[in-house]
């Protein structure tokens, strides 16, 4: 304890020495190349919103094709140019749309936009630190991400189109420019962009981990940390261990594409030509990809679960049920996430024995996941629930987490997966459990911490409308996809008319498309609310949600260094809501037990 205290004091001291310099920061250092975690968090948030709009619009374009296969799309020509020919969307561009939608949503929105925003914003504020361990690395992390985004954005406008081999970019399709146009310059840009993205993720992750371990304020022991911080901490560890593997996969793919190596290629005859590459294995790439790809699901989901844990406890005015079990389940899920990747590959020709091992491991993940779901429900049981928009979205997340998690149990069953693999059942499953659930977590976080970010409140009524329309819309989009999947419809099909077996469900596809258009459109309510409230929102009180965590002890608009005076010390966990005997229904973490004698439980004394 004393060591931590010394570091903390030294840090605070160093900070005070430079205190007077901060007024003279150039605006570029303050708002552009800023090292302040709060500014960087907002930069991630705005980038995330930008990419979410792009990703959403791309999905609408291919939903138009799927829902209205006979429609004339000439009206999209101003936007898509040559990709519309004679009123029809180009089939290769359809694949490019699907690919870019996946890449953008998974990496740029739900990884950078979610983890980047909230890990940066909340870690120092909730553990009681003046900033991240390295502000400079943190800044670098954002600008690597920015650069990666620029490359990906440019790839959308190349004449041969962006990458089109699916977001999983399996070779040989992604390795051979003659196999599909998207594997020309679009794929090169994709790989470069992802390489930069991984650098960004690693720099960010290192910082999150270091900060959580080293910069906690006095009294903020690991077993008092809010679950948000636990979630970000574990997420960063997962990222640090898994992203390098994707990096190696991407690197080998670059070699195969540009330098004639054959890591993933063998015996290929294409375009009337025998390729010289021999002895590589496409399945090797799949292993490397999913070694990140599966943990990535949890990189996306766990922060959202952390955010909702915090919001559900606060708004139910109850301690989170089973705090320790929640931590163990996050750790358990994180650990298991590394040893289940090959359940994406049951029918890729991998040895069936591996299939049985991965089926066993995969189904084990259901156990900690179930614990989390039950603990959420137990938390709202006998609560005194205040439905803020953040709370609504958090309950929405739990709903999606359950619905999507359950179908995962079917897909994890190798024998049942034979038929369902690469059908719309899979699309429905992961869009619900990882896409929508994480998206809801992210939106919940924005509603909840908006006052801390901008010193103003978002409009609640618009928030309610936004929630209900989005909630209904998202279920209308993804629920019917299960039916289409059970009927065997393969994913990434430009059109289903060629097959007798897949010629049904025309109406249902149209319904899904209309629902998707509706759902994306209602997000403008959020955007309006968000931007309007930044400038014109009601001024926020100091602690609008009557929350226990440390960020609400900072000024309404915290400056650089977060607390103007000394950093508060922590004496208790963050979930003392509605404690029997206490006058109020919350006791913030920085209140010592000596001041709350009336509500202390046996053994709760300040250990100073």
């Amino acid at each position, binding site marked *: 304890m004393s060591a931590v205290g010394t570091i903390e004091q030294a840090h605070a001291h160093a900070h005070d020495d430079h205190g007077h310099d901060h007024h003279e920061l150039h605006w570029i250092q303050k708002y552009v190349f800023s090292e302040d975690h709060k500014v960087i968090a907002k930069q991630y948030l705005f980038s995330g919103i930008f990419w979410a709009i792009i990703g959403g619009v791309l999905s609408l374009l291919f939903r138009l094709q799927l829902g209205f296969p006979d429609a004339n799309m000439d009206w999209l020509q101003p936007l898509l140019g040559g990709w519309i*020919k004679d009123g029809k969307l180009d089939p290769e561009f359809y694949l490019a749309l699907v690919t870019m939608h996946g890449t953008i949503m998974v990496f740029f929105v739900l990884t950078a936009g979610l983890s980047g925003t909230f890990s940066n914003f909340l870690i120092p504020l909730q553990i009681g630190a003046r900033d991240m361990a390295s502000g400079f690395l943190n800044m670098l992390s954002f600008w690597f991400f920015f650069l990666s985004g620029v490359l990906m954005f440019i790839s959308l406008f190349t004449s041969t189109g962006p990458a089109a081999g699916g977001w999983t970019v399996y070779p*040989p*399709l992604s390795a051979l420019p003659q*196999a599909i146009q998207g594997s020309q310059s679009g794929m090169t840009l994709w790989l470069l962009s992802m390489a930069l993205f991984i650098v960004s993720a690693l720099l960010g992750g290192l910082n999150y981990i270091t900060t959580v371990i080293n910069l906690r304020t006095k009294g903020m022991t690991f077993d008092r940390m809010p679950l948000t911080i636990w979630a970000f901490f574990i997420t960063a560890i997962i990222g640090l261990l898994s992203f390098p593997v994707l990096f190696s996969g991407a690197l080998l793919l670059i070699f195969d594409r540009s330098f004639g190596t054959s890591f993933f290629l063998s015996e*290929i*005859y294409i*375009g*009337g030509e*025998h390729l010289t590459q021999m002895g590589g294995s*496409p399945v090797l790439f799949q292993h490397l990809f999913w070694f990140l790809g599966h943990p990535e699901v949890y990189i996306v989901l766990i922060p959202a679960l952390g955010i909702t844990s915090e919001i559900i406890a606060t708004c139910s*005015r109850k301690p989170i049920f089973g*705090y320790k*079990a929640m931590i163990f389940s996050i750790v358990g899920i994180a650990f298991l996430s590394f040893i289940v990747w090959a359940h994406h590959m049951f029918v*890729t020709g991998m040895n*069936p024995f591996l*299939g*049985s091992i991965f*089926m*066993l491991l995969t189904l084990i993940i*259901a156990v900690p996941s*179930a614990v989390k779901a039950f*603990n959420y*429900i*137990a938390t709202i*049981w*006998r609560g*005194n*629930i*205040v*439905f803020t928009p953040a709370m609504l979205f958090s309950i929405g997340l*739990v*709903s999606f987490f*359950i619905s999507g998690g359950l179908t995962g149990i*079917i897909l994890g*069953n190798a*024998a*049942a997966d*034979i*038929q*369902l693999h690469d059908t719309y059942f899979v699309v429905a499953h992961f869009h619900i459990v990882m896409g929508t659930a994480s998206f809801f977590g992210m939106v919940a976080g924005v509603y909840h911490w908006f006052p801390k970010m901008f010193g103003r*409140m978002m409009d609640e*009524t618009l928030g*309610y409308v936004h929630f*209900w329309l989005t*909630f*209904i819309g998202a279920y209308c989009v993804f629920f019917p996809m299960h039916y289409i999947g059970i*009927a065997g419809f*393969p994913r*990434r099909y*430009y059109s289903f008319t*060629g*097959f*007798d*077996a897949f010629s049904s469900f025309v109406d249902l596809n149209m319904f899904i498309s209309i629902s998707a258009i509706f759902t994306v459109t209602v997000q*403008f309510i959020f955007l*309006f609310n968000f931007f309007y409230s930044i400038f014109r929102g*009601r001024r926020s009180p100091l602690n609008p949600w009557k929350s226990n965590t440390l960020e609400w002890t900072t000024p309404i608009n915290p400056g650089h260094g977060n607390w103007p005076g000394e950093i508060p010390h922590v004496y208790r966990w963050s979930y003392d*809501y*509605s*404690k029997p005997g206490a006058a109020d229904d919350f006791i913030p973490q920085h209140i010592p037990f000596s001041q709350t004698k009336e509500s202390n439980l046996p053994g709760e004394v300040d250990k100073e």
Partner: protein
Amino acid sequence: MNGLMLTAVGALILIILVLVYRIHTLVVVMRGAKSGDIGMANKVNAFIFPVFFFVGLALFYWSYQSAKPYFLPEAASEHGKITDGIFWEVMLILLIAFLVTNVLLYVFPFLYQYKEGKKAYFYPDNHKLEMVWTVIPALVMAFFVVFGLIEWNKIFTFPEESKCEVIEIMGKQFAWQVRYPGQDNTLGKYKFKEIDATNEFGIDLTDKASFDDFIPRELHIPKGKPVLLRIRARDVLHSVFLPHFRVKMDAVPGMPTKFWFVPTKTTAEMRAETGNPKFNYELACTEICGRGHFAMRFLVVVDDSADYEVWKKKQNPWVNENADYVRTKVPGFVAPGEEVKTTTPVAPVIVDTVNVVEELTKKGEVSLHINFASGSSDLTDASMPSVKSIFEFLTSDKKAKIEISGHTDNSGDAKKNKDLSKQRAQAIVDALVKLGIAKKRLEAKGFGAEKPVADNATEEGKAQNRRVEIKKI
């Protein structure tokens, strides 16, 4: 114009939003409602949760009932019935979990909504309860794992090859091809280096076992007998998906895979059962493979064993259909029933190795040496790959129109040559129309020997001139 319209509509929506919001704010101010109060809105939200759930549940039931008729018919393979069973049994158990958790999740918000003066129940944990909901899912999962594994291992325990119908299936951009072992029940070896425009499988002609292999245009399989698919791909990943048989396995270049199953219903039985006289089994691709991924349909027919044997007997080995080609690799090869011209030197045959689809897409024209029976306009089977590749181009570029022109060498009567070349071009048009291409997209022309591309003095030159030119118009 449309862009302008869209912008206008967007702007209008934005303006309406702003207005509505302003009015709402003003109304709040007028009412004097204090911000920060927990009032009516909380009750409304609390009420919508259970309403959402029960209405949603009713819609779930209704939509399921109306979607059910469009699900695939009962599995037509032995393992398929069992995996379907696993799917629906697991689904049922999950449905129970879904209902229990969701009832709680949607009813609790209503029951425990904020009430003035009420205090929530301080309930940080209960180890017994947590133990219960850790152990129960663990037991259920263990149950799933055991039953799933038993079936999975059964599916991947392959029967002896001698007891199976072994069929090779090869995926390429963007079509499937199948090869049968023929009379000797042994598939001939293949070599990747032997693949070319005619020999699409890369059949190794030094292996005698390949001489009775045949490559039909439909996949026929017998009812009640294990079928072993040897699966490979020659360009990118594909995936063999036989939806009705619950079969799926990737086709991987450089790494052959396999899958076996026992068909249980013939096409005729399935037609009777589904009440659809046009019912057909199909083969699809489920691994993204490029532009034509969605169009890799291949017809599958399940015969009863007698019909299947009859069908097999009727098939002509690939080498016999491509005798000219085979002779370029195996000098002196003679197909059974083929007229042996030992006295006259064999006219050189040019084997097209160009990628028709690519040439047409890039250059807009291609010259092919399509085989016709000598002096007639009958297409030989050997020429089918070329016709098929033109067909592929026409399906990949749905709008393209092409002109097909026939050319001959200068031997024989000029008028006759011209007529013959026209008839030959027309024969290709007819073949394409038969494959489903609209007539208006095709134009046949005949030039006889009018437009030579090589010297007619040599046999080689003549062979060059006997050609068909395809041009995009």
